């Protein structure tokens, strides 16, 4: 078992609005092989994303998208886009914590 940093096995890590009330994160892996390793072992889960962003894992949706070797995670926005106290109207700078994510993986 080895600890991999997500930053080393993914080629795209981004966040964006999915409408004004949800934030969606895309992790596109460097290869199909890595993607299959991560998805077959379920290494990126609602619990991990929930822990990272301090949201209830039941509110996190995870979709594995094979054509792009990508995992998509979606969470409700704590404050809707553009509301008075909101900080990121486009939701494009909420991915930072994912760059620090480490996942244990064989090989």
């Amino acid at each position, binding site marked *: 078992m080895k600890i991999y940093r997500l930053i080393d096995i993914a080629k*795209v890590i981004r966040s*964006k*609005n*999915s*409408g*004004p*009330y*949800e934030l*969606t994160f*895309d992790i*596109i892996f460097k290869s199909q092989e890595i993607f299959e390793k991560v998805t077959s072992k379920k290494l990126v889960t609602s619990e991990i994303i929930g822990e*990272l*962003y*301090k949201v209830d894992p039941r509110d996190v*949706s995870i*979709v594995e*998208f094979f*054509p*792009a*070797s*990508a995992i*998509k995670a*979606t969470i*409700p*926005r*704590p*404050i*809707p*886009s*553009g*509301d*008075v*106290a*909101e*900080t*990121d*109207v*486009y939701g494009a*700078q*909420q991915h*930072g*914590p994912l760059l620090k994510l480490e996942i244990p993986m064989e090989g």
Partner: protein
Amino acid sequence: MREMRVLSPTAILGYGFPLSSFKSGMELDPHLIVVDAGSTDPGPYYLGAGVSFTHRNAVKRDLTLLLEGAISQRIPLIIGTAGGCGGAPHLQWNLEIIREIATEKGLNFNMALIPAEIDKNLVRDAFRQGQISPLKGVPELTEDDISQATRIVGQMGIEPIMVAIEGGAQVILAGRAYDPAVFAAFPIMGGYDRGLAFHMGKILECASIAAIPGSGSDCAIGYLRDDHFIIEPLNPNRRCTVTSVSAHTLYEKSNPYILPGPGGHLDLRETRFTQIGKGSVKVEGSRFRPSEEYTIKLEGAKKVGYRTISVSGVRDPIMIPQLDSILNEVQDRVRDNFSELGEGSYLNFRLYGKNGVMGPLEPEKDITPYEVGIIIDVVAGTQDMANTICSFARSTLLHFGYAGRLATAGNLAFPFSPSDINMGEVYNFCIYHLMKVKDGKTLFPVEFLEIGG
């Protein structure tokens, strides 16, 4: 094999495109040009205030080229979500630009306008009849949301655009529209597969964003055939790859396999992407699944007040560790001095270098930055009141005597004079819901007009 070529010049009308890419596209003899003009991404202000988030001059530059191209090659030009949000003022703003270009360039054409603002009484009736439901993560609608909304738009599907085409319009200016529908309406009328037409539209609406290197301001073309379509960038410096096109399907959506829209959803579970040559991608297997009931998405924004901000920075190592408590005390001082402000006003300190970007989602809570950018952010019932609170909070913070202070001349570095900025009206989204309708046409009556001549 028959083929329909659809040219998408840019991701958003006004974002621009290289003339050389557009010329290459026009040389491929497209059957139509479609451009999306809108997005909810820039936030609720533009919908509520009725203004565009793109600049008039930039929109006019793009539209001049598109109109001249479409008219000279006698092909339709369809513009979706006019003016960025597709409400009545947005539509009029864009129409005015089109009239101006037609006059300057001596162009004549038949045109259709498709308004997309939805009458509040109609929304209220639908709400009372249980025809409105929230999208995921959105609170249940209330009657207050409806009455407080400054403007409500509905997202049209292909049907009103088809009416406009049937009526002989060469240029179609649509209000709020489902982006892929603007691209798919004409091909679907020509008998092409709905699933493929919608999926091609879904990719083309962002033009060259689906290419490598990606760009929101460069042209792409789609070749729609009976059992597949091909996506190709029109700038020789860009390529579409299986990864870039399939990854684009993820963009701004919560589930990339099932993409709901007016009248049904696009099902991409069986979609296959294949590389063609160096820079094109073939897509097949996408399906459209009509829904039992036709629903359209409603978007509404309401005015919540007026904003004034003040930008400054702190670089004092004694002050920074105490910032949170200092700002709490400043809050108390402001509230104490203006007790009449009550609940209706809002005062917030946005701390860049601390949690200004992520706010409540920021996991790093225990770091002490060496420098912090502060935006004093005030929203109140009138601009005058917002100015008053902002000015008072700024002067209070500037001279606040915190524990252990050595720098007694002032606590803030202001980059600008004047230090305070009026931001004007502030809006929130208050409606983002689905409404059941009897068909895709009724809410979007098409108006025909002749331009020029």
